[in-house]
């Protein structure tokens, strides 16, 4: 039983490194044949994450700085958590049709809540006395954002992007359902790729997600201003989690 599982695991890994005939025959799958799928997967992931960042960060900064939209922030966070990503992706395909645009749109919607919430809370958690002192010294509103609020909330903002990236990498697997051939294809079509293809690709996606997590953890650490940096690496993440909790209870 255990040996059988190990065999399957090995076969799955072999699928990633060597191409083979498809189950029905006639087509090569696996190995280097996976590269276009990987490329498509990463493309939609990056588009989704970057778009979400470009939309959510400025909006959240604006709302948090002006002190408006606490309600909006908590709504976005809660809706984002409640709606299943597959529903978002399939729902919008009904309006936008099949293709990359639709998938990226869905992924962007999925990526917005963590980034928005973290940015909003990041700006809000900046010590009010520090902001008062900044105003009192004569910094303009924009200068307060760029010189005080933004640097101090960078760790949380990158924490949000990190969460979103991991979500999006996993969710891009749904691509084939809306006509985009991502790494989800071997998983959703075991009839073509075989059990080894399903398992192997699942492992690959998990590895990408973990790698992304690590890369962003590094970026998050590097983005933390020196004066507020702690040697404890778990802190920023805990802060991020607490931030989300707080936002949902606003």
């Amino acid at each position, binding site marked *: 039983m255990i040996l059988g599982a190990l065999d399957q695991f090995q076969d799955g890994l072999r699928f990633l490194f060597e191409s083979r005939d498809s189950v029905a025959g006639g087509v090569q799958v696996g190995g280097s044949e996976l590269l276009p799928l990987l490329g498509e997967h990463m493309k939609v992931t990056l588009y989704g994450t970057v778009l979400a960042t470009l939309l959510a960060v400025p909006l959240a900064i604006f709302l948090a700085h002006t002190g408006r939209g606490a309600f909006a922030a908590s709504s976005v966070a809660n809706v984002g958590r409640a709606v299943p990503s597959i529903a978002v992706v399939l729902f919008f395909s009904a309006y936008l049709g099949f293709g990359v645009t639709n998938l990226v749109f869905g992924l962007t919607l999925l990526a917005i809540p963590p980034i928005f919430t973290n940015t909003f809370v990041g700006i809000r958690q900046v010590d009010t006395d520090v902001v008062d002192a900044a*105003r*009192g010294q*004569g*910094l303009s509103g924009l200068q307060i954002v760029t010189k*005080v609020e933004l640097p*101090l909330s960078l760790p949380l903002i990158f924490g949000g992007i990190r969460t979103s990236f991991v979500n999006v990498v996993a969710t891009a697997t749904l691509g084939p359902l809306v006509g985009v051939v991502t790494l989800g294809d071997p998983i959703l079509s075991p009839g073509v790729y075989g059990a080894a293809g399903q398992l192997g690709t699942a492992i690959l996606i998990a590895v990408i997600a973990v790698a992304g997590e690590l890369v962003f953890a590094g970026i998050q650490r590097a983005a933390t*201003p020196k*004066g507020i940096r702690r040697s404890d690496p778990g802190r920023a993440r805990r802060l991020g989690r607490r931030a989300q909790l707080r936002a949902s209870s606003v």
Partner: protein
Amino acid sequence: MDAATLELRNVSKQYPGAAAPAIADLSLEVEAGEICVLVGPSGCGKTTAMRLINRMIELTGGEILLDGTSVHSRKPSELRRDIGYAIQQIGLFPHQTIAQNIATVPKLLGWDKARCTNRVEELMELIGLPQEMAERFPAQLSGGQRQRVGVARALAADPPLMLMDEPFGAVDPINRERLQNEFLRLQAQVRKTIVFVTHDIDEAIKMGDRIAVLKEGGVLAQFATPAELLMAPADDFVEDFVGADRALKRLALERVRDIELWPARMVQVGDPNVKARELAAQSPTGHVLLVDEGSRPLAWLNERDLSFDKVGPHKGRVASVEVDDLLRDALSDLLQDQVLYGVAVDAEGRVAGILSVEIIAQFLGDQGPGHIEEAAAAADRIA
């Protein structure tokens, strides 16, 4: 930049929806180079009044003039760069070094790098922090050090006016006293016009050239020098606020050298006793003071000690106070030594005169009849 004059003309602040105004018709004039303390119980609007000046809060009536120009003629952020700002919570930027924190306003004003660096060095020196601390972050400093950096940041661009909201409120009493003294020394050098907010009447008396006592609703109860405030409180509110021990507080405003001491009748070993007895008879204490060649006090001598023909060596206990002591501390020394008078000595230990409880009572008596009655009443209670 030189110090500026500040004038509040019938200033009021009414928050929308509030029944009573936060500040009602407040008028104050602060002369250049003076420390004006705004003091009062919490909720009296003292912080609001201060924040109206640099437009952190906008007034709803009246006018505020800085060197004769209305603060409303300028953009708030530009106005604030000309007004130093230090608050109790300090609010240093945690992600910036001490040097960057101090250089905040100079950078906003577009000073070049070399000028900023020089100014930071100058200010580190002025607040008594070692230069190598400039590269540290706020979290690496103690509370007292951060407090000093907050003051340095407010002073950085040499503003003609400084606003300080309980700047020493968050430090322990020992450090607070030190920071206050340091700040007064600093002010003696820089001579800024300062608006200083506190709820602590003792701090107000210590720091203020003039004190504005505010009561609920931002109503000015009295605007006077510390001495005037203690001598003649304008009403019951001020009298309550300055406290029942205002005679003692009055003593904290003067030093031993500021009042007229009794002259000391001094003799040295070997002086003829005839002369000594004569001096003792003239002395209000009935004693002469035996001193050494450096006129440092050795012992009190009475009639009995002077029975031979020359003054002999004596050893005794002499209560002494320094001329630089506050009258309050000197009185405390006398009471502690259970004596009615003591020798006032200068920094080298030389006799400057005799300080007695009687002189102090007289000094307070000269300040107004209220004190005599109060002191008499207190004496009756004790008796």
